[in-house]
């Protein structure tokens, strides 16, 4: 028998064994699937949140509002100063008059604005800083505030950085949860295989007596663990796909309210493959630990 057909036939036998009795096998797989889908689902949501944060904080913009009394000459001076600053990539000047017109258009308050005695808006610079972290942007913002004639300096993406910090925190929480549940998965497999070695004690004993190597005896159990893990992983993937499908519509409505075109990204192909491989590996590991522990207890050695 070639190695491949041999392994395939073992896999076939083991597949049947997982589902005898059918209910117990299904419950095991479901438990593994749910345990895996929790951290993975949270991971997917976090991944989405992070995409959103990146989208929002990718442009490190600072708005500088000048005091109403600033003279055009002063404005020129500030502009040269800003242009020479090493931390600044781009400087755009928006004069008070320039700012007023689009305000009227976008808000539909043209009539109100037309009725104003004087323009209430200040001159402003919109500055794109060189890419940096939240800290360096804050330093830059504080520095620019010191410039004579600047009334207010505002970091537009400040809240996005806060959100990012929260996401990073949640990421660690997910990691902890994932580790705990992985340990749970190993335990489930460990116990299932323990019961298997008990029910197949006779077979193991006879096989040992007539010259089976440990590898031969171990093989079906390892396959069992790996296959059960894999089926659990597939279940988890299905649960996540279904869950995201359920979230899709409410989220679309929500993002419409915020005038954003944000849409939920599904579990990527590479992530699903990693999930399946990981679950397969955990199942295999649990089985390996269990077989190593319980096989040596069956005589003869």
């Amino acid at each position, binding site marked *: 028998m070639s190695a491949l057909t041999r392994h395939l036939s073992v896999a076939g036998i083991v597949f049947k064994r997982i589902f005898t009795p059918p209910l117990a096998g299904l419950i095991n797989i479901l438990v593994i699937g749910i345990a895996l889908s929790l951290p993975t689902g949270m991971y997917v949501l976090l991944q989405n949140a992070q995409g959103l944060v990146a989208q929002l904080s990718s442009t490190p913009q600072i708005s500088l509002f000048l005091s109403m009394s600033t003279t055009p000459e002063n404005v020129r001076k500030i502009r040269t100063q800003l242009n020479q600053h090493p931390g600044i990539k781009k400087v755009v000047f928006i004069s008070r008059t320039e700012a007023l017109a689009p305000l009227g258009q976008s808000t539909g308050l043209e009539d109100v604005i037309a009725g104003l005695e004087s323009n209430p808006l200040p001159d402003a610079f919109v500055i794109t800083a060189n890419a940096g972290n939240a800290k360096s942007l804050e330093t830059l913002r504080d520095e620019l505030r010191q410039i004579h004639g600047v009334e207010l300096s505002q970091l537009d993406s400040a809240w996005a950085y806060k959100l990012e910090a929260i996401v990073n925190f949640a990421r660690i929480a997910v990691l902890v949860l994932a580790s705990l549940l992985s340990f749970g998965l190993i335990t489930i497999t460990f116990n299932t295989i323990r019961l298997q070695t008990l029910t197949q004690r006779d*077979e193991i004993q*006879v096989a040992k007596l*007539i010259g089976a190597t440990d590898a031969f005896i171990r093989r079906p159990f390892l396959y069992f663990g790996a296959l059960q893990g894999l089926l659990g992983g597939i279940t988890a993937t299905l649960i996540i796909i279904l869950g995201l499908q359920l979230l899709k519509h409410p989220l679309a409505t929500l993002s419409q309210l915020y005038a954003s075109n944000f849409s939920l990204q599904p579990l990527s192909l590479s992530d699903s493959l990693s999930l399946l491989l990981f679950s397969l590996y955990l199942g295999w590991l649990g089985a390996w630990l269990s077989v190593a522990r319980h096989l040596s207890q069956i005589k003869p050695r």
Partner: protein
Amino acid sequence: MISFNQVCKRYPGGFDVLKQVTFELAKGEMAFLTGHSGAGKSTLLKLIAAIERPNSGSVLVNNQNVSALKGAALPYLRRNLGIIFQDHKLLFDRNVFDNVLLPLQICEFDHKESGKRVRAALDKVGLLGREKANPVALSGGEQQRLCIARAIVNRPTILLADEPTGNLDAEYAAEIMSIFKSFHQVGVTLLISTHDAGVLRNSPERMIELKLGEIQADFKPGTIEKEKE
């Protein structure tokens, strides 16, 4: 082929099962191991298959010191032995055919060839018609023959049988003995433990008698003179 040299075996608890056992079994020889129950027959057979290890002395099989073998080498030793267990050790979760197939699966034998071998072994013990039956459905004699078929299917050079006629009536016992003799004729080395006087009475084979763990007598074929106790 099999050689015991000053072998002692003591089970935990301090009871000496075998004391200074020394004998040799040549290639192709057939011998009976006799003695009352508790004389150490089963233990002696277990030492050959390294199911138990001696406390002192050495057991050689094919010039290999079995008592010094590492765990990983044991399967390959056991594949050279056909063992017929006292309690049969048949698997009741599979049919007759699959029971006999097991040793070939373990040796990772060619799939097509396996089927032929299994049928040949079943034919030899007269169970060819019962391939699909579950061992539970077999009579005691048939179970014993199934156990023999499993022991011979990968054509071992040494056959060990522990009380193969233990619970069988005379007719069945004679049948099984004739099967063993046919193996002997094709050059298999056989060591059969028995306390069945009927089997031994009209047998010309060598007889090793154990008493309380010691070799009491060793009658070789052709030796007419019997050593007295």
